[in-house]
């Protein structure tokens, strides 16, 4: 299972060989996660997720009759429709356009593929479950926050799923002068999660990149993972990777997913017992 082969957090994040990032995190540290369900009264299920400053809200409607363009109904399974919008004020700088077009469509289809692995569409044949999300503030890992919000919202809506889906991104960034390294006694090259010495110089694998880190990354991998089942529903890697570093990155992402999964379960549990 992914994540099992990773040594526990303490051994790896030896403070004497820790990379510090812009916001003071170590390479393997995720930002604080906040999850709240039941935030949209009109929806069957809804959730709000914050990954520090990245904020996403998601509402799930259905099973219900599909919207326009869903005339072709399969008799034995239902449809899962995903639509994600990026708010015009979500990014710093100039106001964005209302309809982002291709970027939103691609984002929506990535979320759709990640969720498809878990949603049991055979439980709502001939009908559609709509997952609508809006990114209210984008500061890195919007895809991960959206998938987490969608998972929680689907769960609250009572849509049958094989497991909760969580997602995490890991990027490979070149160490620059802005990332300071505190050298320590034990020269364990792997202590910060896969430092690579190569012709390009040493690189670092960063978990849950913030906006600036994601923009400066050489390569990245996003993993959508079902933690209890131990199955990945989607892996998207960009940039060039060699086998071992990709494996390290995916392991690191899986450990991040475990954290997201725990936060989702905690929020869902407290909403049920409340």
């Amino acid at each position: 299972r992914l994540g099992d082969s990773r040594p526990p957090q303490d051994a790896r994040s030896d403070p004497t060989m820790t990379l510090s990032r812009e916001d003071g995190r170590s390479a393997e540290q995720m930002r604080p996660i906040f999850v709240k369900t039941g935030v949209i009264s009109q929806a069957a299920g809804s959730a709000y997720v914050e990954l520090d400053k990245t904020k996403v809200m998601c509402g799930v409607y259905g099973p219900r009759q599909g919207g326009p363009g869903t005339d072709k109904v399969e008799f034995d399974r239902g449809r899962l429709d995903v639509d994600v919008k990026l708010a015009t004020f979500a990014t710093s700088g100039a106001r964005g356009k209302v309809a982002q077009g291709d970027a939103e469509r691609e984002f929506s289809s990535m979320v759709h593929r990640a969720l498809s692995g878990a949603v049991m569409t055979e439980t709502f044949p001939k009908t559609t479950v709509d997952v609508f999300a809006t990114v209210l503030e984008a500061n890195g890992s919007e895809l991960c926050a959206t998938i987490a919000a969608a998972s929680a919202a689907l769960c609250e809506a009572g849509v049958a799923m094989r497991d909760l889906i969580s997602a995490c991104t890991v990027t490979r960034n070149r160490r620059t002068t802005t990332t300071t390294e505190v050298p320590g006694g034990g020269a364990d090259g792997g202590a910060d999660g896969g430092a690579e010495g190569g012709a390009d110089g040493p690189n670092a694998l960063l978990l849950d990149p913030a906006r600036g880190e994601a923009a400066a990354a050489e390569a990245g991998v996003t993993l959508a993972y079902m933690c209890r089942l131990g199955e990945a529903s989607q892996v998207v890697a960009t940039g060039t990777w060699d086998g071992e570093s990709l494996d390290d990155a995916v392991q690191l992402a899986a450990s991040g997913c475990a954290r997201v999964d725990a936060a989702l379960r905690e929020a869902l549990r407290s909403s049920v017992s409340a």
Partner: protein
Amino acid sequence: ISSTWYWPGRRATMEAAAFKRLYPHEYYAKFISEGARPDGRPLARARPSSVAIGVAGTAHGSALVKVGRTTVMAAVKLEACQPDPDAPDRGFLDVVVEFPPMCSASTRPGRPNEDAHFVARRIEDALFDSAAIDKRKLTIKEGLWVWKICLDVYCLDHDGSVLDAGLMAALAALRDAKVPHVVVDDRGKITYGGRKTDEREPDEGKIEVAAAPVAVTTALYRKHLIVDPDAEEEALAEATVTVTMDAKGGKVVGMHKPGGTAEASETDLMHCVAACRLNLEARAKAVDGAFL
């Protein structure tokens, strides 16, 4: 919870939820005839509201408003741009209202919501007609640079009376907005965050908001006036009337009755104005409270 409902002329018992689904008007009329509404409010009572500011870190100003369960978020971004040659000393205010598909069961992606444009124009009207925003106060350098206020209002949860909540959110976001410091040199080039001529000058100024317009929507249903309808009530209503008043001064700055199947008599309209006056202070206080 199930209760016994009788359909006149036919003895049938069914659960309240099923009755509501099949005969929404009969269900609603049963409450109205008793002077109450399904959520327990009397006909003339508006829902409580709450306001929070500074909710979007990426915008210059922002606010989140809840009126009952209706949730609206507004964000203000300021851009420096060239003024219209016919009006060299006036800035711009661009209001965009969005109903993202997640906000209600009836909004779908790809199909623009008909109400969005209406709500945007009403918010704009309210801000100008009450003189809350004066475009002449938005000049940076006359003829060369003026501020354009980009005001985006997103409805996150549509439970009726979005215009009321949207106007409160717009006002709060405008008051929250921090205008970035800019410097225009002799050649007319503008730079953000330039050197302050006076060290005591604050880094960021504020937009002058000279009035506090408040909107209250009333629905007309079978000769009854229902103040601050929620989404279900709006769907059943025959017409709605929105009255906008300025909390500073108590004057009516706008009244709109966009069509509908019912007519509103003069008395009805006067009652709507009275309903607005009744709720004026509470809503203005909710907005002020966010800034304490």
